[in-house]
């Protein structure tokens, strides 16, 4: 375990205060990073974690307090400055350039140069080496835009490893990663820690917190709750320190999942043999009224690909889709929306939350788009809907007039979800809806989904967190290697069963069709 008392402080932040117009994002927060230690920053969405990181790296100027790096007071004027002082950072919003190649994104600003300028062959070799350290092998000359969010996140992390830094800051680096990739990353982090690097880590996955951290700092509403060695703060206490209360019971959600579903009438959607060459082997899926169908599988197993075909975001080249018993041609998202099918994608930035509009405007946007420009949503009606979802999902600040751009990452995710739910679809497809969302809010979102499904909404729920899938879904479709490998009923399996099934470590349980 860490010999915390002796470890040398590399970064000391004292009494950091940052104010944005109308919000005090940080109020007198302290943070100490020591060499050879993994320090995890915990807090609800909007607690100020990312802001603290941006204060450290000079993205935001601080309004009060001091930052001391290696004994000297510093005030960085930007990431470049911080990098020079040995602090490299992966910010929460993956900050890369999708118009450039993978290798270039890893190496930008650190390209290998010869007498004749950048030596691209060597640069790509370097990039490949850094990616390989994280267990990623891919064509570094391919454009970043051709890759999934998870790959982009790995690229962003590799980028931070290029310079030999004394401090490594990782703001929710694992939000899109699967177990194998997280293991790989943790291996790298441990290696760096043992070499004396100070690591600042942010995540909402409690398992990961206890797996990797030596020390925790908890923030709540922009103030410091405290700093604790990890062994002094068991899970329950950590949660109550973060959210300021005990976490409500999740049993109600599990009960909802155990509910019997009426499968006698036509399903809301029935896909038969839907597939696309090179993307997804033909698969069957049905979702009935009031049912939550979970989609489980590893990253790249075809979960997202399947729902994109259902939604018409990509065009299927095989199979048939019926909506309520009638054959439906869904080759375009427009067709899906017309049939009241909503899709909240895993990529919230591409999805088009409009940063310069307010929370209320973003939520109403979906309803307005559905009604067409001419039938304006009445103001009073808007207010009730917006109010309802801000409450139900716990958007902070609970101010309908806040600009979405200024919300914390997790709160933006909630607004996106609210927008889709507010359109009153008959089927909603949620791809990683709880990514980057804190434990308390995760429960809020699950509760809301359970509640809506009890009222008859059909839901397809994709999540890498298997506990969550099991808790919320009645039925789980399991994907592997871009094919559907089976279906499980959730109430009689546990997480370990599901993991084993996904990994094919045991003969399959009662699955009607094994491979499509």
């Amino acid at each position: 375990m860490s010999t915390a008392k002796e470890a040398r402080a590399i970064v000391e932040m004292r009494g950091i205060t940052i104010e944005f117009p109308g919000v005090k994002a940080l109020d007198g927060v302290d943070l100490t990073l020591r060499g050879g230690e993994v320090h995890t920053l915990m807090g609800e969405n909007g607690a100020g974690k990312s802001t603290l990181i941006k204060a450290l790296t000079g993205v935001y100027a601080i309004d009060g307090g001091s930052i001391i790096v290696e004994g000297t007071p510093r005030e960085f004027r930007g990431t470049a400055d911080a990098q020079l002082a040995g602090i490299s950072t992966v910010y929460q919003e993956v900050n890369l350039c999708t118009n450039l190649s993978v290798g270039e994104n890893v190496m930008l600003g650190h390209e290998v140069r010869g007498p004749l300028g950048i030596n691209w062959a060597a640069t790509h070799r370097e990039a490949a080496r850094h990616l390989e350290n994280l267990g990623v092998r891919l064509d570094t000359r391919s454009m970043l835009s051709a890759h999934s969010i998870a790959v982009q996140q790995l690229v962003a992390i590799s980028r931070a490893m290029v310079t030999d830094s004394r401090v490594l800051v990782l703001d929710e680096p694992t939000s899109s990663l699967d177990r194998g990739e997280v293991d790989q990353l943790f291996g790298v982090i441990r290696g760096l820690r043992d070499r004396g690097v100070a690591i600042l880590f942010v995540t909402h996955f409690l398992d990961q917190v206890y797996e990797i951290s030596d020390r925790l700092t908890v923030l709540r509403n922009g103030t410091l709750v405290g700093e604790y060695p990890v062994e002094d703060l068991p899970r329950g206490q950590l949660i109550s320190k973060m959210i300021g209360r005990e976490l409500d019971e999740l049993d109600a959600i599990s009960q909802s999942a155990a509910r019997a579903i009426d499968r006698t009438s036509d399903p809301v959607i029935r896909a038969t043999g839907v597939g696309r060459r090179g993307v997804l082997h033909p698969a069957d899926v049905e979702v009935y009224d009031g049912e939550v169908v979970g989609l489980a599988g590893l990253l790249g197993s075809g979960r997202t690909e399947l729902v994109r075909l259902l939604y018409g975001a990509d065009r299927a080249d095989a199979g048939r889709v019926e909506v309520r018993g009638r054959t439906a041609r869904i080759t375009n998202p427009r067709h899906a929306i017309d049939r009241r099918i909503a899709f909240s994608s895993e990529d919230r930035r591409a999805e088009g939350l409009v940063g310069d509009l307010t929370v209320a405007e973003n939520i109403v946007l979906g309803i307005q788009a559905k009604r067409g420009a001419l039938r304006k949503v009445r103001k009073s009606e808007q207010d009730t809907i917006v109010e309802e979802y801000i409450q139900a999902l716990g958007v902070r600040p609970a101010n309908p007039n806040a600009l979405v751009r200024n919300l914390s990452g997790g709160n933006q995710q909630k607004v996106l979800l609210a927008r889709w739910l507010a359109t009153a679809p008959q089927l909603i497809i949620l791809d990683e809806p709880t990514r980057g969302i804190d434990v308390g809010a995760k429960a809020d979102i699950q509760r809301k989904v359970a509640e809506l499904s009890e009222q008859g909404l059909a839901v397809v729920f994709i999540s890498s967190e298997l506990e969550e899938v099991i808790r919320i879904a009645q039925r789980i479709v399991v994907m592997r290697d871009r094919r559907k490998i089976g279906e499980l009923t959730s109430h009689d399996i546990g997480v370990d069963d599901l993991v084993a099934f996904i990994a094919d470590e045991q003969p399959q349980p009662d699955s009607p069709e094994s491979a499509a």
Partner: protein
Amino acid sequence: MTSVQAPLEKADAFGPLKRFVSRRASWIPVFAALALLILIFIAGQAYFGNFLTPRVISALLLDNAYLFILAVGMTFVILTGGIDLSVGAVMAFTGMFGASLLRDGVPSGIVVPVMLLLGAAFGLAIGVLVQYFDVQPFIASLAAMFAARGLAFMVSLDSIKVETPEILWLQSTRIQGAPGSFYITPTGIIALLVVLVAALVLAYTRFGRTIYAIGGNEQSARLMGLPVVRSKLLAYVVSGVCAGLAGVVFTAYTGASYPLNGMGTELDTIAAVVIGGTLLLGGSGFVVGSMIGVFVYGTIKTAISFMGADQSWTRISVGLLLLLFVVVQRIIVARSDRR
């Protein structure tokens, strides 16, 4: 916990074509422009019979040397996601100022650097407005355009004849093999060199790569710790210097300077750059593409004068092509967004 992992990317799932597309998607518009150019050549040859001759092709480079240079500068600016409307006027002003100095007997060894510096100053002014005063590039460069045009008229309302031998030499010297074969003038060589140097800078220097990064996502570029401010300023300076150099070349080409030179040239330049496959949003494009764009523009002009039709047809056809290419680009961008 079990550590299981799906292979992230399957190498064999990508055919060679897919691999090419995944690597070189941004070159597709350039190839489109090249195909168009070849198409126009073939059509011209089929129609006129004497279109594809060394004389005509050599004249293309000669007549449009200034446009090649302007297009290179414009490419830098557009790659950052900006625009520079001042280039035509700056070319006219530096031309006028240079011509007046030459007339007063200042040696060309001083005049030419002064012209380049003047161009740089205009570029710097636009860059500072954009970067530090948050002025839209469109507005900042529009202001610079008016300023430069006004200054050109202040130098003289009439054209100034240039008789300095070194300047005229740039245009009149023809390096040629056999009579009737291809030839090139020093102005053409300058234009080609500018294209070459710019292509190398964009592909092989950190400054060049930063330009692409800024155009891709300025916020990201900043968080990556790249020198965003400096590079953006420099992009406008490059455009300004190119405008100054175009002033030199154009003065040599016409043997005189006239304050109305280069009216609307900024728009021709932008059209050529866009036809050459550079996205107006920034972050994607190549100077080689811009060069092809200028060739397309010049070839259409030549073809129309072959027909004996009015040159307003050039404008009309370039306008239509521009529309076509912008639509094609939109489709490409939309498709690559959908992956």
